[in-house]
């Protein structure tokens, strides 16, 4: 019977991932774009069934995300999404586990869980909605807000030095680290699919505009007039070029980066660093991560690094298999009656 009943898999569409919930973000919020790109990319995920997808979030505007995805979802508590997702993934490695989180959620209250999920290389896909502000609590500075930022809790300007999420993830030994913006929808979809394909922790920092409390935070990067000079799209195996006519490039001398014009001063395209996401050395990805928010350099987008290391969820499975092969499937009766026993008659 089953043979005759072969049902052709119908390809899902973005709509299949939408729920009946009203989306409650402010009109114009960058979160809408992220939701749309996720919904558009998900039908293309290979070998992932809809019922095997789980979205875990913490607390924040961004963490409302799971309510709008027609997958399994868990809106948890502030900062703990990576730890909850870790439990989901370890206990059922067959699931595709995604984390939606904000800059406060992931990097302030949840910083500890984040770095350990990176280090352990748990097979999670982490989307950081970085609006550089606490949205849900109405506009306090966050761990990614620039120093000097005036907010309700920093009326004279914040005195904190911010985290650079990409360099933090790299430093914590994440095996896939990428960045995109809420504006460049095609690029974001690419990054989402790349993350989905990565075996291990995949971290994407998404520059997300909060129209209410931090509007325009990324304008310089996204404005038509400036973006060619301000953004560096990194592509595997290609020289790191930017500028209106791709006339500028990143050169590295030792560990010191500089911007060169390939048409001037005897420079050529051969002087420009060729991007290698798979470079096992962390040096170049770290240098690139630090170009962020500089006046001298463009801000890189794309995949900074992708390396391969066993995942903790996979290793746990492997150990269970190995020990079971060696000792045989556990027998509780035997275990209870093992050790020093004696009989009372």
């Amino acid at each position: 019977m089953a043979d005759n009943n072969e049902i052709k898999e119908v390809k899902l569409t973005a709509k299949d991932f939408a729920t009946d919930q009203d989306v409650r973000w402010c009109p114009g919020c960058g979160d809408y774009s992220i939701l749309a790109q996720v919904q558009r990319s998900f039908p293309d995920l290979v070998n992932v069934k809809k019922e095997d997808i789980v979205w875990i979030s913490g607390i924040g505007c961004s963490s409302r995300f799971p309510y709008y995805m027609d997958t399994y979802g868990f809106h948890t508590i502030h900062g703990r999404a990576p730890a909850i997702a870790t439990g989901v993934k370890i206990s059922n490695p067959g699931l595709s586990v995604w984390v939606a989180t904000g800059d406060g959620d992931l990097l302030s209250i949840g910083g500890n869980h984040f770095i350990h999920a990176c280090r352990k290389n748990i097979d999670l896909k982490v989307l950081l909605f970085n609006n550089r502000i606490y949205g849900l609590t109405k506009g306090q500075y966050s761990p990614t807000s620039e120093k000097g930022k005036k907010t309700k809790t920093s009326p004279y300007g914040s005195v904190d030095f911010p985290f650079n999420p990409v360099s933090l993830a790299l430093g914590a030994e994440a095996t896939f680290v990428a960045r995109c913006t809420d504006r460049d929808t095609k690029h974001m979809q690419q990054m989402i699919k790349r993350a989905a394909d990565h075996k291990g922790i995949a971290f994407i920092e998404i520059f997300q505009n909060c129209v209410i409390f931090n509007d325009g935070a990324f304008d310089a990067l996204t404005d038509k007039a400036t973006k060619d000079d301000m953004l560096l799209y990194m592509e595997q195996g290609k020289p790191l070029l930017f500028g209106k006519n791709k006339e500028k490039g990143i050169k590295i001398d030792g560990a010191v980066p500089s911007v060169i014009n390939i048409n001037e001063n005897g420079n050529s395209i051969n002087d420009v660093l060729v991007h290698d996401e798979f470079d096992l050395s962390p040096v170049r990805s770290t240098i690139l991560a630090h170009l962020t928010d500089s006046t001298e350099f463009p801000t890189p987008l794309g995949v900074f690094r992708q390396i391969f290391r066993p995942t903790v969820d996979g290793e746990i499975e492997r150990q269970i298999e190995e020990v079971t092969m060696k000792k045989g499937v556990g027998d509780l009766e035997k275990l209870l009656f093992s050790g020093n026993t004696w009989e009372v008659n």
Partner: protein
Amino acid sequence: MIKGKEFQNLTEVTVRFAGDSGDGMQLTGSQFSDTTAVWGNDLSTLPDYPAEIRAPSGTVYGVSGFQLHFGSMDVHTPGDRPDILVAMNPAAIRKNLPELKQGGIIIANTDAFDAKNLKLAKYDTNPLEDNSLLGFEVYPVPITSLTIKALENTKLSQKEISRCKNFFALGLMYWLYNRPLDQTIDWIKKKFKDKPEFIDANRNALIAGYNFGENTELFTIRYDVKPAQLPKGVYRSISGNEATALGCLAASVKSGLPLFLGSYPITPATEILQYLSNYKNFGVKTFQAEDEIAGITSAIGASFAGNLALTTTSGPGLALKSEALGLALMTELPLVVINVQRGGPSTGLPTKTEQADLLQAMYGRNGESPLAVIASSTPSDCFYMAFEAFRIAIKYMCPVILLTDGYLANGSEPWKIPHVNELPEIPVKFWTDKSTYQTYLRDEFLARPWAKPGTPGLEHRIGGLEKANITGAVSYDHDNHDLMVKLRDQKIKNIAKDIPDLVVDGDEEGELLVLGWGGTLGAITEAVIRLRKAGYKVSQAHLKYLNPMPANTEKVVRSFKKVLIPEINLGQLSKIIRSEFLIPVEQFNLVRGLPFKSMDIEEKIIDLLGGKI
């Protein structure tokens, strides 16, 4: 046998081994316990070690002790006061003498009573030589030098040889209490299977100690403690932490669900994580998390994914888990949290016992956040209560806190091992039917369906925001919130219909009921038994279910003129009983980081009865 060495029969003995943390006293004590258990005595143990791993040698605070009480009768406690103290150095005497019974025996390792150690123990003169131990039976034995002499021919270093002295002491104790050596010799063989020279050395030290007893003029009497009348069956000796781990494993086997433990090491709960890390071939997944919050939240994730979810900790860790406990009860996911209580507040007394987390377990969360709270009362009872915790968690889709304590965790007793087929099944049903599924649908127990990711068509969202009953959609509706607060409460209250009644031991009504909970069962029982024998009228009941309490609890407490609640805290159960049932309660509270002595409880009972028989 040398003439004049007579056997004296005893029904019970309390022994305490004490020495430096590096002297191997825990090992010596547990070997003596194992041999004694196999010999057939009932027993109960109390390891008492400092928080420092290797406290400076010779100091009083560095003394590590191991007490055990064994007998030919039922043994309920590790013993109030030792009959005999094995003191490996002066500090051991300094620390333990106040506890020793008048006329008690001291076996002292004279080699350790040098000027330096005496000074460290704050003795101006050697207590073995001045008159300060008058009234005790002191046996000075040069344990270290006798060990060195016995091991003359080994290739071990001087330091390694002197490390064997605890086996000499153990051998001597085996002789004194007429126990066989083979159990310990087997253990030595296993332990040092790759180091034959250590097998010989330790075995020879053990035998030398035994022979010393036999040949010396020092001892003229040996003791015999006949086996106890225990119910038929196969026994093993079990500590509370091991029993807890096995109980969790049994729940996994009986529910057919893989066990997931998320935990962060903390004394005295760590061993549960250690034990469970061994059971990989049972499919157990242990995750040593980055902190206690990740311990519980990873377990919540595992529960959402359909595993049997567990987190283990002690007081400070439970505090860190509070917020996540709220999430588990709000999302109505099954979760077991085991809190091995230790002395608090804050870091408190990490290696000592206490019962002061009851109110934290009951109420330590934001919002109206009822969950089930149960407690183990003996080391082996930890097995059954861990199993019970999972049964409740799954049936009622709720978090359950199991309270044990440092005394139960480290103490051990003989356990009549149950057969796996005698344990009940734990039924689990995952929801699969798409057409009837609603996230907060309720069954007759008010439990919601458990639908795990991977099930086609049941994609749903849960979270910490208030949910509309039945549909599970986020709801800010005022009346719905009121309804949900009350439903969550009622669901926990319903558990009362599903647990055994509170049993009264003794008259069902009368003058005085001693009501206890948790690890104080042994001490209360011993006190009550002794007083009843002496003709006092006193009844006893012990709560294993704290939230909800058994349905007949009110009736029981109202059947007595007085209710005495002994607790190792300032009266936490007393508070609950008073406020639940509006009855006056007599408290007995000693918060010394130690289990109760039954004589303290006895005194209090006599006092309350006005000395009346």
